[in-house]
């Protein structure tokens, strides 16, 4: 498959693995930020091919993991309303709120639809003028341009039956939260390639300098990830801390100015709650005042929905590489993939879910 097979080429990957092994002289802890990168690492079994003293920490860059319980509960409350058609990207359907998930709400009669593009909601809104269409606008900077385009088009068309439940989050503040923690163990980052394709790389320069941590903007195929890791290790071994771009085929330093302009016209920076990590200042986007009419939280009375996270869950520390799942008293007992307490058990690729899977096999 063109543009994929080249980046999964086994001999080329072997060369990078050998090169990483050759230049590594001591243990390093590196975080891949994006859930897409975690997926590739798990899918291709990359961790076990790396030298044993390179530890990969799966970062918080997965909307399935970090969308806060409170927002999920709001989504569930909206989806259960008889007048609402609730539209979502596929894998948010199985993210548990405090009591249930969107699949359960659909089973109980809620009209919950999977869309492949935010813009699909325009057709649904036109086809159902007497229904309220709510789109679950989650994700990082990557999904924001499409979601912003939905708002801009809906405004231009004057669609009054469409709104968004927005929980956009931003990567640089999350990296800063990790780096600034006194317990931080992460020494370098594979930054999320597609986020940078939209936003560019400028926001990462001050982070690399202030915390003396290499940041390598990296793609999502095995060869991308191995090359990104090689670039990280090379910087670490040489004592450098710079922003480098492995994903040159997609990422320009300035990003995509057109998408940025669209985002800036629709969204404004807000403080966001992250599942597992708590509140991070200026870490998300919400609809700007000009588009407040499209804000589902404004349109519907949802203010009273609030859901504290389970106190014993340590997923925040696990997300940041500070603790291992075995250190959690709830792990495997009160917290399982079927009944997850926190972010890292929610996603199949979350650290706790992966440990749980292995543990089952080892002990059985």
């Amino acid at each position, binding site marked *: 498959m063109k543009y994929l097979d080249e980046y999964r080429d086994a001999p080329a990957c072997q060369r990078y693995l050998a090169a990483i092994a050759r230049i590594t002289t001591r243990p390093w802890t590196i975080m891949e930020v994006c859930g897409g990168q975690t997926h590739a690492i798990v899918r291709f079994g*990359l961790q*076990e091919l790396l030298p044993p003293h390179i530890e990969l920490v799966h970062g918080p860059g997965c*909307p399935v993991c970090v969308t806060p319980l409170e927002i999920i509960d709001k989504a569930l409350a909206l989806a259960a309303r008889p007048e609402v058609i609730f539209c979502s990207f*596929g*894998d948010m359907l*199985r993210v548990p709120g405090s009591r249930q998930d969107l699949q359960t709400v659909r089973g109980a009669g809620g009209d919950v639809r999977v869309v492949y593009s935010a813009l699909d909601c325009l057709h649904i809104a036109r086809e159902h003028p007497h229904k309220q269409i709510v789109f679950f606008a989650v994700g990082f900077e990557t999904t924001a341009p499409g979601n912003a385009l939905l708002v801009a088009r809906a405004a231009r068309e004057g669609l009054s039956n469409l709104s968004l439940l927005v929980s956009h989050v931003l990567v640089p503040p999350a990296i800063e939260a990790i780096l600034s923690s006194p317990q931080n163990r992460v020494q370098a980052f594979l930054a999320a390639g597609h986020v940078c394709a939209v936003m560019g790389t400028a926001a990462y320069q001050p982070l690399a300098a202030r915390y003396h941590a290499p940041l390598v903007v990296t793609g999502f195929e095995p060869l991308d990830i191995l090359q990104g890791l090689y670039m990280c290790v090379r910087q670490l071994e040489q004592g450098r801390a710079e922003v480098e771009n492995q994903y040159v085929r997609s990422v320009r330093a300035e990003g995509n100015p057109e998408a940025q302009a669209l985002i800036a016209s629709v969204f404004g920076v807000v403080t966001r709650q992250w599942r597992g990590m708590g509140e991070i200042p200026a870490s998300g986007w919400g609809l700007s005042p000009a588009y407040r009419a499209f804000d589902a939280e404004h349109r519907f009375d949802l203010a009273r929905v609030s859901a504290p996270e389970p106190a014993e869950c340590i997923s925040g520390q696990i997300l940041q590489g500070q603790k291992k799942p075995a250190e959690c008293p709830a792990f495997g007992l009160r917290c399982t993939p079927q009944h997850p307490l926190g972010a890292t058990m929610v996603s199949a690729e979350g650290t706790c879910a992966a440990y749980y899977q292995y543990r089952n096999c080892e002990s*059985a």
Partner: protein
Amino acid sequence: MSEPMFKLNCPLPLAGHERVLMAHGGGGRMMSVLIAQIFRQAFDNPELETRHDGAVLTLAPGRLAMSTDSYVIRPLVFPGGDIGTLAVNGTVNDLAMCGARPLYLSAAFILEEGLEIATLWQVALSMRQAAERAGVRIVTGDTKVVERGHGDGLYINTTGIGRLEHALRIAPASVRPGDAVLISGDVGRHGMAVLAARENLSFHSPIESDCAPLADTVMALLQQGIEVHCLRDATRGGLAAVLNEIASDAGLRIDCDDAAIPVDRAVREACELLGLDPLQVANEGCFVAFVAQRHSDAALATLRSFNPRAALIGAVLDAQPGLVTLSTELGGRRILDMPMGELLPRIC
């Protein structure tokens, strides 16, 4: 399957009606017309012609297999088949997975008021065609009609009976460490064909369902004297679900090689685009065979005589019970997880 069999007269409109009405399920004249002109005409066989409450069958002594399945699919017609093809092949294949030669099927229809008679006729003809191909007869049936809005057009249940012509015990408990794991064809086509039809997705190259009867392939394996330990068709949940079920039921570990598992290029591309794993996508014409290691080559040759894409994909190990691993194309190894249930495209 001979062409003249299909020179049947389309019964349209059915006594003046182009759509199914509640009265078609009411037990009166309209139901008789529906049964006579659609089902008896399409399925045409002596057992059905007795027009009795059930079929009376004469079976040779020996072990029998019985299986039942209900078919619910949207859209009713998809590239490569329809609900009728599925309803026959699905049950025929479940019998074949018991190592049985399929003989007879029952067919029960739940029709939604308003279903087009032309669609029902097409489905009935598909069932006839699939039954001919699989060598089974549809010998008894039932029809019910539900109000509009209470069904997805048409649901079908089929139950099948087949005869075992061997002494093997084909079941997960018969799987042994060292067994070879083979697949009878490429995976992921049925699920992607249906998804594309349902969601109006158009891919570069169209994908057709693999829906097909598997009994001949299984019979050939058995006739060759191959020591078959377990067979399972990789339907819902795809190959990933089947391997996990058997690893868990047999209390053994299964190791497979990702690169050996055949996936059609168009299926692979569509899955990449949507963030789906082809190993979790449903199939309707492909099965996994666990055979004694010494018969691995012979089994593969037999499977390939039916489908050149059949492959040896892995082996059974006497290790962590229930674990399924996949060696990746880069030489790594990962756990192949049990799918959660519904296929949900990934955000990232």
